């Protein structure tokens, strides 16, 4: 078990709940989702509760995260996009905090499960579709018809554009999931080398310095990836929301 790099992704039921034959158990994944939300919410609430005009160190961290997401959204979707700020900010904070919490040893990484990231991506795409049709009616479908395409090619191009649009939630979710999964497996494999090498006596212990060093280095890289993937997820969300706000025109 100690050397199994996949074991960390196993879901275990903490409180088994079954309603009408369906499994609604409270799992470790759910527990860490709750922990993520609580951590992010508590951090933002506590750090901004003093409301200093001159922010304290922690307050400026939360203000920076606000500014960061706000400017990202404004750049991508214009000032109209700011109505989606709560959603984008929540998504960003959830993904970021879930990624960071997952870096602690023995902690579960929520975003390393495809279904979680896919649900988040579906939320984004669902918002884009619903809001697009609400605001533009069938004009939203212009999104799929690029301008300046010869008439014969239009059906082909529209089909390709539709497939491309439908592939967005998949690529959005797979990217986040694959990054977290690959990173954590790599980390675990290198950490496993340390224990298995040191079983070979003195030479092994000396040799295990190398994978130990790698583990430390990869941990640093993983912190970067955790932030980067949350950022990428939020940026792509902003870009897709921009399509909902201004399709084709």
């Amino acid at each position, binding site marked *: 078990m100690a050397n199994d790099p996949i074991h960390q992704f196993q879901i275990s039921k903490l409180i088994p709940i079954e309603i009408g034959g369906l499994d609604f158990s409270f799992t470790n994944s759910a527990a860490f989702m709750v922990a993520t939300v609580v951590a992010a919410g508590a951090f933002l609430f506590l750090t901004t509760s003093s409301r200093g005009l001159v922010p304290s160190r922690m307050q400026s961290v939360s203000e920076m995260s606000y500014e960061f997401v706000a400017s990202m959204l404004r750049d991508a979707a214009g000032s109209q996009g700011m109505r989606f700020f709560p959603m984008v900010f929540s998504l960003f904070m959830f993904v970021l905090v879930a990624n960071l919490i997952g870096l602690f040893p023995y902690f579960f990484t929520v975003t390393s499960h495809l279904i979680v990231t896919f649900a988040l991506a579906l939320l984004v795409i669902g918002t884009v579709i619903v809001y697009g049709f609400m605001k533009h009616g069938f004009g939203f479908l212009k999104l799929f018809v690029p301008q300046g395409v010869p008439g014969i090619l239009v059906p082909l191009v529209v089909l390709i554009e539709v*497939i491309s649009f439908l*592939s967005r939630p998949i690529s959005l979710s797979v990217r986040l999931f694959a990054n977290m999964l690959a990173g954590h497996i790599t980390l675990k494999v290198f950490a496993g080398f340390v224990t298995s090498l040191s079983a070979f006596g003195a030479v092994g212990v000396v040799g295990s310095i190398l994978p130990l060093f790698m583990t430390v280095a990869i941990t640093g890289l993983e912190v970067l990836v955790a932030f980067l993937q949350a950022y*990428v997820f939020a940026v792509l969300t902003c870009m897709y929301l921009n399509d909902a706000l201004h399709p084709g025109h």
Partner: protein
Amino acid sequence: MAKPPGPGETGNDRPENRAENDIRDDELERRRRQLEATLATRRQAERDGEKSTGSSGVTGYGQALKLSSEFIAGIAVGVGIGWIIDRTAGTSPWGLIVFLLLGFGAGVLNVLRSAGMVTEAGVRSADKQSDGPEKK
């Protein structure tokens, strides 16, 4: 030291000294311009270098994951649609074949789009000024 030093404070009251100062100023001006020119070229080179080396190391790995996921997602969706059409309409191999190819096209489009070589779906809104990396 405490006083703000004027230009050429070391006795520029004498005429021969002043002429020398003028020459030195000219020399200085010339050198400064030269430095500016070299700095400009170097900064440009650095910026270009950043752009090219940006695709190595960590960001290269990220780029690879990004592009491959875009490509695979396109194909997967194409295959999925084709399979569903075959299931419902009973046109067994044809839906899969056609939509696999369309999905391939969509995957290539996704990759080109995320690499910034094709304009985004639809035309960008007016409040977004010229989209730099697109339409290379």
